[in-house]
């Protein structure tokens, strides 16, 4: 499979924020399939990013369920309800709080299909907006942990970065019969983008070429995509042509698309918001090194928690400058 096939199909588009795209996706799937429902805190009020706005009014309190502050129950109820024939969308508010339900996600949901010998599917979507948000909320509200989830057998892991993919991936996730960890790009929720009109599904496991280029391949995803595109533009101005791959599906990841691009450019950078040490970038880098024998330059956060003060928070953050420096340094 190759990149951005699905966008070719789209004829008309509409512009909306990522939060709106998310709401549309859920609303469409709930209209289509009466077994789809959502549960999480404050959903009746529209959710903290507005991604559930108006849905309680349309679908009622039995399908848009505002729950107690009981993360481990939210997660495990989603699990039990998936085993019993529904397709729950579990809202964790932000990824950090999902750690209160980590046993349920990792020990129950991810392993169930296997432990039970494939008796049933576990079609549950776990929404975990991740990364540094806009509110400077410090260490317990800002983590990016995709590396953990990719390391967990049984899970599909998605990390959209655009409105189109937020919509297309959430819809694909809801229709997926595996548990899907949906790592939404928290900081990008209010940003707008084009979304193909009509039924729009993003295929799972297919990367998107966000910018074509010939000198260096830059693999990235989620909140770092806009920054990566800025860096690519700066590199362009400096005479380096950068191909930016928005990986977007982290498990399975589109190894073929990445290898094809790197085989062409012979230079690779991988950049993500998460801590570099033990990040998913290490897996991509190790894979490229194994397959193509190339040295990959990794960019990620230092191994520090996210701090409150903006200057400290920025030190954690991967900037366009840091990506540009990595592009220049890559060989």
């Amino acid at each position, binding site marked *: 499979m190759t990149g951005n096939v699905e966008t070719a199909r789209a004829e008309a588009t509409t512009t909306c924020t990522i939060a709106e795209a998310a709401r549309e996706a859920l609303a469409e799937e709930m209209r289509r399939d009466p*077994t789809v*429902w959502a549960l999480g805190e404050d959903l009746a009020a529209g959710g903290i990013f507005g991604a559930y706005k108006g849905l309680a009014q349309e679908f009622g309190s*039995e*399908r848009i*369920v505002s*729950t*107690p502050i*009981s993360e*481990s*129950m939210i*997660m*495990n*109820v*989603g*699990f*039990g*309800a*998936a*085993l*019993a*024939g*529904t397709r*729950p969308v579990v809202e964790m508010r932000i990824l950090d709080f999902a750690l209160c339900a980590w*046993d*349920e996600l990792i*020990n*129950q949901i991810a392993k*169930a*299909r*296997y*432990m*039970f*010998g*494939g*008796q*049933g*599917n576990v079609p549950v979507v776990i929404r975990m907006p991740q990364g540094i948000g806009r509110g400077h909320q410090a260490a317990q509200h800002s983590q990016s942990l995709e590396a953990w989830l990719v390391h967990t*057998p*049984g*899970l*599909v892991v998605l990390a959209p970065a655009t409105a189109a993919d937020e919509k297309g991936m959430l819809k694909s996730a809801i229709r*997926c*019969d*595996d*548990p899907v960890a949906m790592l939404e790009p928290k900081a990008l929720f209010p940003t707008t983008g084009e979304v193909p009109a009509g039924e729009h599904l993003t295929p*799972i*496991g297919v990367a998107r070429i966000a910018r074509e280029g010939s000198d260096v391949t830059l693999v990235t995803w989620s909140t770092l995509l806009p920054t990566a595109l800025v860096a690519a533009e700066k590199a362009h101005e400096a005479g380096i042509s950068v191909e930016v791959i928005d990986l977007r599906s982290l*498990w*399975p990841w589109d190894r073929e698309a990445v290898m094809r691009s790197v085989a062409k450019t012979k230079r690779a950078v991988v950049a993500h918001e998460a801590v570099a040490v033990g990040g998913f970038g290490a897996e991509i880098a190790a894979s490229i090194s194994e397959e193509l024998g190339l040295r990959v330059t990794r960019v990620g956060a230092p191994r520090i928690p996210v701090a409150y003060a903006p200057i400290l928070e920025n030190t954690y953050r991967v900037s366009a400058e840091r990506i540009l420096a990595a592009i220049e340094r890559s060989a």
Partner: protein
Amino acid sequence: MGEMKAADRVTLGLAFLRTMVRIREFEMHARIGYDRGEIPGVVHLSIGQEAVPAGVCANLRRDDYVASTHRGHGHCIAKGADVTAMMAELFGKTTGTCKGKGGSMHIADFSVGMLGANGVVGGGIGIAVGAAQAARLLHKDAISACFFGDGAVNRGPFLEGLNWAAVFNLPVLFICEDNTFSAFTRASDTTAGKGPTARAEAIGVRALSVDGNNVFAVYEAARELVEGIRAGHGPGFLHAPTYRLDGHTVFDKAPYRSNEEVEYHRGDDPVALLESRLHAWGVDGTQLDAIHIEAREEMVRAMEAARKAPSPSEADAFADVQLIGAPR
């Protein structure tokens, strides 16, 4: 029991006995299988606790759900799971309920609503609550029953699950199978306050406590709760004190309690209690023996079938992980 006709109570008692003896025989055979090295993995036995699943599950329909624990053989059998497939699972064979992937701690049989034993204490609570919520959403009138031990009442999911079921008025029966111990520790040493029933009531769940060795009492209390649950009155809670006659696992010699204590509790063995009751009601010994013999033969056959069943192959290890993104 007062109102029940003598014939009916005998019929019911014999049905209970059949279930309880099947559970016991299954586990005695599992112990033998483990001791002989035919069953590779650790097994937790519920010998002495059989009245609880037997009495509770007699109130459940096939389409009702059950979520269980690491000590779940009794719950599975009482809910109607196939013992041949269960035994094969303990043997790690492809004919097992989980194709040998789960073992004793993960036996599940979705075809009878058994949503799994569970390796995590308290792990079944949310599953049962979720299944009940799904049933409502799908306009099914199934209910969920959730078994857990006395140790689970000190874990967060107990609070979260009971509160949730009460808030959403869900059809869930919670059963605390209180076998006096949580692993090597006496439950009373780690549980403060007025006990599980008081906790459930404070959280807003109707609760009853009953002698967990008396299968009729368990049955009646569960029936009362299940009737309320099916009538839409929300969740119920049953506390059933009993005693774990064996060790925590097949290899636990239980040095933390005296032989006298165990012997004392053997006097309350629910199978023996039920038999003497049936005896008093005029059931003769041969009829009781027949039940034992039948169960034993069933388990011998299950062992035999498990022994002969094919082992999984290496390639099987890669199946059933996930549909998208599975290895190989």
